[in-house]
């Protein structure tokens, strides 16, 4: 199939409809998923999905159509997108204007050592069977699971402005989880690196790097501790969050809050809005002065990295919050101009089928200078929590509540007894302004989130959130589960 030739036919068809802008994507996505649960293999799943998408602007209104039907010509698909654009024009207040962007031509292949799709399936099965057996060897654990997941994107992009791009992205993920039911209503679980596992822009090598077997005894010990743990007390205290839960707080209270489509109310009915409205730009003290956030789609092995976003803007690194102050948003060419910025290359689609919308790439909390020993040792009375299990945040990304798999008391600068059902709640800006210490770079991990839901029809974006363990003072904990 001559992909470029077909795309050019589509651009010609768009021109015939007097489209002021058009982009055409062709993508092939391969997935392979393996899992074991409770000693039994889950069905192995492989999939391949390929298709075309046409997005265009006619008289300032968007139209979008996508299809995998090989009998449908690119002209017919473009005609369909044009019909949708003309329908959009019926209910339009202002014409869409795109901020200028450089014409891009090139190829990006994500860095990896071993393409997971070249690894024999037998090896992958053996890897999981071995892990399952290692978890099953521990008495007292009555549920266990492990998984491995691989994805390869082969993406082409062509625009009426002249951009021509090709990207190959290889992503791998894996995780383990162990649990014990102690009664009809009580069950304890521990997972590594977190309940959803870890995903990175890497090849098969990720599975070995995660070194799962070394973590199993610690998870078993945690579950033992949970059996005798007290429920999380309800109080205001100093809270140290492990990097795996800090990353989720970042995802919900910073990444989503700074998506410019939310800020302008475009997700009002479904995904919500944001308290961080444009008049706050350059003035809102989002966090304490040690808090610095960047959105970075160039982080080498982070799950949310790429070469260009899905409207052909080159990936980059942009400071969102500098010394605690709001400096920028995640944006697209359509919306960046409304805050006098250029696009941060965050317009992304999940696969060929979906329309691109503003999504996080990697949202990174810059590391601080504290060792883990310091983060704990400087606390006379507090709680350390790890392993995100529950999250809920309001429609303005302002008030939230999170739950974790396990917590521990901190007494006199030392980790003490375990705490079960730990939760904490807060308000975004107050919470980040109460951040008084951030772990150093040696503890910094970019957690991969493979299932960030947004948009209609629902799209699961793959994002990264970078964090070290982080400390907050005067945080409300407990009393909810």
């Amino acid at each position: 199939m001559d992909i470029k030739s077909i795309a050019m036919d589509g651009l010609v068809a768009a021109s015939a409809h007097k489209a002021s802008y058009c982009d055409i994507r062709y993508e092939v996505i391969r997935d392979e998923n393996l899992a074991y649960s409770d000693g039994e293999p889950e069905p192995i799943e492989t999939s391949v999905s390929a298709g075309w998408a046409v997005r265009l602007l006619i008289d300032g209104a968007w139209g979008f159509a996508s299809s995998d039907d090989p009998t449908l010509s690119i002209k017919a698909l473009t005609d369909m997108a044009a019909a949708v654009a003309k329908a959009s024009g019926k209910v339009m207040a202002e014409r869409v204007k795109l901020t200028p962007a450089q014409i891009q031509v090139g190829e990006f292949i994500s860095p990896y050592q071993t393409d997971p799709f070249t690894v024999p399936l037998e090896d992958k099965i053996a890897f999981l069977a071995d892990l399952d057996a290692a978890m099953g060897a521990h008495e007292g654990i009555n549920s266990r699971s492990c998984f491995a997941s691989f994805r390869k994107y082969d993406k082409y992009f062509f625009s009426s402005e002249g951009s021509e791009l090709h990207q190959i992205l290889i992503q791998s993920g894996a995780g383990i989880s162990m649990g014990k039911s102690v009664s009809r209503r009580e069950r304890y679980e521990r997972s590594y690196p977190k309940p959803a596992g870890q995903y990175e822009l890497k090849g098969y090598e990720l599975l070995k790097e995660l070194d799962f077997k070394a973590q199993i005894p610690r998870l078993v010990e945690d579950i033992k501790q949970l059996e005798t743990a007290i429920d999380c007390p309800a109080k205001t205290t100093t809270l140290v969050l492990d990097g795996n839960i800090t990353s989720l707080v970042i995802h919900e209270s910073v990444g989503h809050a700074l998506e410019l489509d939310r800020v302008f109310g475009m997700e009002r009915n479904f995904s919500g809005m944001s308290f961080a409205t444009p008049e706050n730009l350059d003035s809102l003290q989002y966090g304490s002065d040690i808090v610095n956030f960047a959105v970075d789609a160039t982080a080498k092995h982070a799950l949310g990295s790429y070469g260009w976003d899905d409207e052909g803007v080159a990936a980059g690194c942009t400071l969102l919050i500098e010394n605690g102050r709001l400096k920028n948003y995640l944006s697209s060419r359509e919306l960046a101009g409304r805050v006098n910025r250029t696009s941060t290359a965050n317009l992304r689609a999940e696969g060929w089928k979906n329309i691109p919308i503003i999504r996080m790439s990697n949202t990174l909390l810059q590391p601080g200078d504290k060792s883990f020993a310091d983060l704990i040792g400087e606390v006379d009375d507090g709680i350390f929590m790890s392993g995100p299990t529950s999250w809920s945040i309001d429609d303005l990304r302002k008030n939230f509540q999170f739950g974790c798999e396990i917590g521990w008391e901190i007494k006199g600068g030392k980790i003490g007894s375990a705490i079960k059902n730990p939760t904490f709640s807060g308000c975004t800006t107050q919470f980040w302004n109460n951040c008084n210490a951030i772990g150093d770079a040696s503890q910094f991990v970019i957690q991969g989130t493979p299932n960030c839901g947004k948009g209609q029809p629902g799209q699961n974006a793959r994002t990264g959130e970078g964090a070290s363990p982080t400390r907050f003072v005067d945080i409300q904990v407990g009393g909810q589960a």
Partner: protein
Amino acid sequence: MTESKAMEVLHKALKQSSADQTEVVLMGEKTDLTRFAESTITQNISQEETTLVITAVNEQKVGIATTNDLSDDGIAEAVAKANQISKLQKPDARFQSFPDTTMAPKLDKTATVETNLNFTPNDMAGTVEAVVKMTKAKNLAASGAFRHDINTVAIANSLGVEQFGRNGKAELSLTIVGEGEQSGFGIAFSPDPASIDYKRAAEAAISKAEKNINPIVLPDGQYTVILEPAAVGQLLLFLSFLGFGGRTLAQQRSFLSNKTGEIITGENITISDEAENPIFGSLLFDYEGVSKKRIVPIQNGKAGEGAFDSYYAAMMGTAPTGHSVQPNNGFGPYPKNLVMQPGDKTFDEMIASTEKGVLISHFWYINYLNPMRTMITGTTFDGTFLIENGQIGPAIKNMRTNQSILEAFSNVEMMSKDRIVYPQYASLMYVPAMKINNFNLVQETKEEWEGSC
């Protein structure tokens, strides 16, 4: 895709498979969706995809391959891949067999409602235009989405099972907004987009937004609440997610596990799953070709039966209930046409009977805290009002609930006789309004945080 074309693809795939058992499922999805905000269409799409899922089983070793390449080569490659995987995989002792024709006889009628194939993007925009016009007349702005899905499903397996069906569904979700945080929620569902009651949804949302001004703050506490049907639907969805599915039951993770016949809610609660109810416009067979049976997970407050496909039914020593969902999913069988038995009150009577309470239109971002306790968290949203002396009073600032759903359903004082279909996450819930006592509500923004957040 026509039935003959779909069956041609399925037969081609089955013929090429050498597995002990093979199941092939063809799923066609066409979605038209018009999203709007600030009374302007912001996203407008038309998308379609047809996916072939092949499951091959050799000596209890299961392999699944999915493709949307329906060329001869594409089908052959997927069949070969599924067979290859199933030979390499370890045996899954839990797999017994796909359904046979005794369990899944071919149905003459496969959907409850005729599908509207002629509703265009222009028609979609026309409906949105009408909503925007109603909204602007009240100096408010409309946000929302109007979605129309047409699903085609064809199934065949090597034991002779065959089914083909097509159904449609349309939903309109509205948030009407005004000054500041003024907002109101409305929703409508119909199998036919041309029949969607957009006027009623818009009137409800507009009315709510008009009243939702200058919200007062309520202290933390346990309140008598009246949940509108949308809020009840959200709780029911999570309850179902946490415990009605065969996978959670087989894994002993469900609140129904080992409790059949025990009282788990108030006696006035009966929840069933009824795909045959034409109000849903659903298909009458599941993704294994088995007829969807009516199940009753909660009957007059007592724990009842769950939803099973052949895999989990075999594990539990029972029969499949026709609740297999799309292959290639991690959730297992699941009921998607939930019906809650109504009460005998009008909504106005429920309000009039309440001396002091809180009216909740909708919840935002529900998530579970403790699945076994059915403990969830979320905030009230798009219209929360104080009820005083039998009348709806001032708006209330959104509050967070941390609440066991089963406990809430144990404290239901009355329910409305009117119900709506509430759609969410591909599930449909036919639900009444509920008056619930002792419902937990706490302030979302703590008093001591004011000024700093």
